[in-house]
């Protein structure tokens, strides 16, 4: 390995600034949350908790956090339930229309967020549902379901469908099959799916922007609205919160990678995930 790594040392030298480019913007928002001045600069002049306490005592921001958590709760619950059950149902089964069905389940990943936002806006307005957090949660569930489907499907890839059949022929009822065959196998997929679903929902901005109302403004929407006027310490506080959540997600994913380094099934997901909320 030594010779292999030293061979590309010019590449390594060139890559260091790119790694810095990747990581630094995400990391600087945390110290910025403890800035004293009214306007944001980096590095912060003095350490202070003013921005944090200002954030916590501002109902506009705390209700945005609450709205985001509610939407994420709906999205995670539905995505894990729907995506997970669909992945189990399709496991090891061939039937006409299977690819089409899989395509429909995965399609929300590749439809641009702005297109979904417009479609959801017209749909939920006609149902008279806009004005509550429910349509945002449902819309996020649509976007998050493919992630849970993919992670559960990936965790099932090691399970031979014949095992299920033999368990049943040995007299196991569907409840036992679910508990003793499927659940242990798909548990990591469910955890990863829930994590992805939470991350998708908590960061999603475009759909939530279209479906927002005074009583249902999520954290990213509030940030997006404010950021266009001023770069304020309160935006830094919410950014720091989101970075903390992102780091937790990242740590779980890294622990997955370390646990089964050979079987990096969670990695292809990243390349397939084309959620377009940029």
């Amino acid at each position, binding site marked *: 390995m030594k010779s292999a790594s030293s061979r590309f040392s010019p590449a390594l030298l060139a890559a260091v600034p790119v790694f810095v480019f990747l990581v630094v913007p995400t990391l600087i928002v945390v110290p910025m949350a403890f800035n004293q001045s009214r306007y944001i600069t980096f590095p912060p002049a003095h350490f202070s908790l003013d921005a944090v306490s200002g954030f916590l005592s501002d109902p506009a921001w705390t209700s945005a956090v609450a709205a985001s958590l509610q939407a994420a709760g709906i999205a995670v619950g539905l995505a894990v339930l*729907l995506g997970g059950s669909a992945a189990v149902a399709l496991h090891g089964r061939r039937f006409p229309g299977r690819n089409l069905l899989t395509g429909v389940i995965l399609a929300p*990943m590749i439809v641009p967020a*702005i297109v979904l936002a417009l479609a959801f806006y017209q*749909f939920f307005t006609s149902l008279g549902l806009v004005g509550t957090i429910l349509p945002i949660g449902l819309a996020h569930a649509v976007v998050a*379901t493919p992630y849970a489907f993919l992670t559960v499907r990936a965790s099932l890839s090691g399970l031979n469908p014949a095992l299920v059949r033999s368990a049943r022929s040995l007299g196991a009822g569907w409840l036992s099959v679910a508990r003793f065959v499927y659940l242990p196998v798909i548990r990591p997929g469910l955890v990863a799916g829930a994590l992805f679903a939470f991350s998708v929902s908590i*960061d999603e901005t475009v759909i939530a922007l279209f479906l927002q109302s005074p009583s249902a403004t999520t954290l990213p929407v509030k940030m*997006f609205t404010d950021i266009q006027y001023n770069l304020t310490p309160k935006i830094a506080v919410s950014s720091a919160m989101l970075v903390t959540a992102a780091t937790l997600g990242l740590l779980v994913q890294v622990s997955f990678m370390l646990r089964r380094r050979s079987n990096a099934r969670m990695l292809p997901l990243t390349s397939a995930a084309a959620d377009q909320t940029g």
Partner: protein
Amino acid sequence: MPLATAVPAPAAGATTRRRTLRFRKGWLLLLAPCALFDAVFFLTPLGRLVASSLHDQAYQRVLQDPLVIRSLVNTLEISALSTLATIVLGYLLAVVIWRRGPLMRVILFALVLLPFWTGVLVKNFAWAVLLQDNGMVNSALQGLGITDHPLALLHNRFAVVVGMVHYLLPYAVFPIFAALAAIDNRLELAARSLGAGELSVFRRVILPLTAPGVSAAGLLVFIISTGFFITPVVLGGPGDMMIANQIGFYALQLTDFAGASALALLLTAMVSVLVAVYQRILRAGGAHEVG
């Protein structure tokens, strides 16, 4: 259940058949919630979108709007530029990660994944702070004596491309890494033993073998680029609006939902064609299919 073995053969066959039947019904019940949910909350809204685009000659109208043409040109220019930069930088990162040992790989992957897990607004906010007139980048440039006055780095196309490349890099690193990892390392050894130097191994062995992976990554990155909405607003200027922003403008400012829907479907059609090409490349390259 051991008694079942004593049951005469025809009866056992009947039980099995009934069981299989029940099992079939069971998996349909498991599939139904997801299928139903997608039918109601995904396909129906898209259907309504198609229906609303068919009003008021929306397609003809939007395609004659110079602002739409402008945003389409912007989208192609910004996406092409971002994709190019992302692929070059992504290739560099993928090669460096590929050349490391297993543990170092995980650490470097974690660095690539940190921005992947971070929301777009957090990233855009950070870039706005870094690139503003009295931001860290300008201070550094002035400190190094490269410029004596703050450069306008924010609210222009440069900032949009920086923000987009930062967002897109993970999407390039992973497929390119997969393509590199699939190379049989005996090929490289063979090339070396035949006297190939550093550069020619890269140019004549590694680069050609990863070309399908690179074009797939490029297409994926381009597809994602075309849908950007937040970044052009936060980091760009008035002249950097992309097609997604134009859709938002039609819907929210003009409340012209027929026009907005028509534009949205044009974008969807473009993305679908690119996705089809993407999957064809992946299949030809033998790599993972999307999903």
